[in-house]
């Protein structure tokens, strides 16, 4: 099972440990919610025009945005998922930390600065820049919303499982209630606070997450006198798997198919990040391309530091907790990090309870901040790309556009509450992996061709967005993630003929191929004047907003 399975499947409770500390956990959750709502209302008062709502007035510093990017990126999959995967599968879990980080170089070298220079509010601004506006914006809006909803679903389902686990809510109605609560919170954050509020929530979350992770890392290393070799050795021994625990292959080395699956996932991770709309729109919140570059550098530093600490988190859990206990708490290992906090503090001590509550609150904050970023990305794209430029043909006033974005937030929130409630017992691995694969298949080829290929045409853009989107989603539909596997969404039926759980290996090259094919077969001439504008703008920042 993938470590991106943030909180999959059935969870047997760690609630025994958690139950006595529930008041503390609830108060910390509540403190975070109150603090962030306060920020949101304050930010809402400062939000006056479209640039405020979509781009936070472009007034954030590179460091602030670097923090917010980190807060937007490090989802529950990173924190709980990777720690759990390392705790259960050892080295194979760590492979993901690497893919998630290296991916940032694509964003830094090829995408962040040109995007900041030539776009305004959404990814669609850049994709449609030199194309026929309406069809390309419709396509860009569609893929933005599809990617974001899949990502959202996973986070919502994860939030439901995490919170119910920690609060001991096991009834279906209770879980649905939690998912609904998260949904309502995200609607409030985004519709009132816009990009400004969302950015501050993400910054606060990033500081909490890094702080919590540093604390746990320090405590783990302290136990082993800062000797990493000792930590690894104890983890290998305690896992019962010996040296194999420290080598690749425990999870993905089973057979030729699982190895191919690993390559597929690796490619999707490294190419997906630079096509994730909720990450891309963060580059509009800084004044210029130089600041965008600096914020990516900050993000690489922060995210890289965090992923390095997942070594201590994951192997620490493996070394200090019996594997049976981790699996009993959650079969996918997703509660390894909170359990580790409890063990570090002492299982029956107040200190342990405080640590557990703190780390759980951090995980909750993590989910909320990511969910807010995703909602903002999809409602912005709906309002700016589809409503203002397609439906209103560019004639909407700023007020109308912001109102459309706020209404879209409510719509998207409602949809994800509904889907999240339905998906609460589903394996969410496929959903997160799909978001990355779809982003890499549908968005990245079009972004790169638009920026760097003179001949690229509207037809090329449409073929590559829709081609990548349909093939990526289609292959997942017929993969073992959806059916034909005990861990699938629909375990009782089998219509899976595609053997890989991640479609990236096929769908990403397909997206690139379709972009090329659509262009060379296209009857219309590329708009060279517009390309001159886009190219000069993207490299120099001339006329950037």
């Amino acid at each position: 099972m993938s470590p991106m399975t943030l909180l999959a499947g059935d969870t047997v409770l760690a609630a025994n440990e958690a139950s006595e500390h529930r008041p503390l956990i609830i108060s910390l959750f509540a403190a975070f919610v109150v603090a962030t709502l306060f920020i949101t209302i304050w930010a809402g008062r400062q939000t006056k025009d479209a640039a405020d709502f979509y781009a936070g007035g472009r007034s954030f510093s590179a460091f602030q945005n670097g923090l917010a990017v980190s807060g937007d990126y490090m989802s529950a999959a990173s924190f709980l998922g990777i720690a759990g995967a390392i705790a259960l599968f050892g080295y194979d879990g760590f492979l993901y930390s690497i893919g998630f980080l290296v991916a940032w170089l694509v964003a830094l070298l090829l995408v962040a600065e040109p995007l900041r220079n030539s776009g305004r509010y959404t990814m669609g601004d850049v994709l449609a820049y030199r194309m026929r506006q309406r069809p390309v914006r419709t396509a860009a809006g569609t893929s933005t919303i599809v990617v974001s909803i899949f990502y959202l679903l996973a986070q919502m389902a994860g939030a439901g499982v995490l919170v119910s686990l920690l609060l001991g809510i096991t009834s279906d109605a209770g879980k649905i209630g939690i998912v609904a609560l998260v949904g309502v919170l995200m609607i409030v954050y985004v519709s009132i606070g816009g990009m400004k509020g969302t950015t501050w929530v993400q910054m606060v979350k990033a500081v909490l997450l890094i702080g919590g992770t540093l604390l746990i890392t320090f405590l783990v290393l302290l136990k082993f006198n800062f000797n990493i070799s000792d930590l690894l050795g104890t983890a290998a021994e305690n896992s019962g798997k010996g040296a194999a625990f420290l080598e690749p292959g425990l999870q993905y080395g089973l057979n030729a198919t699982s190895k191919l699956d690993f390559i597929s996932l690796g490619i999707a991770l490294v190419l997906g990040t630079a096509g994730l709309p909720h990450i891309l729109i963060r580059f509009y919140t800084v004044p210029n391309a130089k600041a965008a570059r600096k914020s990516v550098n900050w993000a690489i530093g922060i995210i890289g530091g965090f992923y390095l600490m997942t070594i201590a988190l994951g192997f620490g859990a493996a070394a200090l907790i019996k594997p049976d206990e981790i699996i009993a708490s959650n079969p996918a290992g997703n509660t390894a990090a909170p359990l580790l906090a409890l063990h570090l503090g002492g299982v029956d001590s107040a200190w342990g309870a405080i640590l557990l509550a703190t780390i759980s609150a951090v995980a909750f904050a993590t989910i909320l901040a990511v969910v807010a970023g995703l909602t903002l990305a999809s409602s912005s794209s709906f309002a700016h790309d589809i409503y203002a430029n397609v439906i209103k043909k560019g004639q909407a006033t700023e007020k109308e556009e912001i109102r459309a974005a706020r209404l879209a937030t409510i719509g998207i929130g409602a949809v994800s509450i509904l889907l999240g409630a339905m998906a609460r017992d589903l394996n969410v691995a496929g959903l997160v992996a799909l978001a990355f694969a779809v982003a890499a298949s549908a968005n990245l080829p079009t972004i790169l061709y638009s920026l760097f290929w003179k001949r690229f045409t509207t037809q090329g853009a449409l073929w590559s967005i829709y081609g990548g989107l349909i093939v990526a989603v289609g292959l997942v539909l017929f993969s073992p993630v959806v059916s034909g596997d005990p861990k699938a969404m629909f375990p009782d039926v089998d219509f899976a003929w595609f053997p890989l759980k991640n479609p990236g290996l096929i769908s990403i090259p397909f997206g690139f191929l379709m972009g090329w094919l659509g262009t060379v077969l296209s009857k219309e001439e590329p708009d060279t004047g517009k390309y001159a504008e886009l190219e000069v703008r993207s490299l120099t920042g001339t006329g950037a907003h």
Partner: protein
Amino acid sequence: MATDAPPPSKGGTGPETPSTEAFREVQESAEFGELRRSYRSFAFPLTVAFITWYLLYVLLSNYAGGFMGAKLFGNINVAFVFGILQFVTTFLIAWWYSRHAAAKLDPKAEAIKSRMEGGA
């Protein structure tokens, strides 16, 4: 066929956008050609290089278990060092690109931008 003007300019708060003709002229100029070459000849090969380096790591993890499992010192094996090296190269490449951009790209971009916006 004329396209709608993207992105729709509203409020007129941004700097004046030069004409398409001005953009064409700059695009064809030697100065811009040098900026483009200086960017692409750095960013493109580097992208190919780090993706190859990453894929090498993925492939070795898959198909060279014995090599990756070899212990170097204590419980630290080749796989662990290889993983840490991916972090190190990521940090280094980010730093290296930023240094290149600040020294070679920013001044050229700045010059073109201020001329175009000043002359608009």
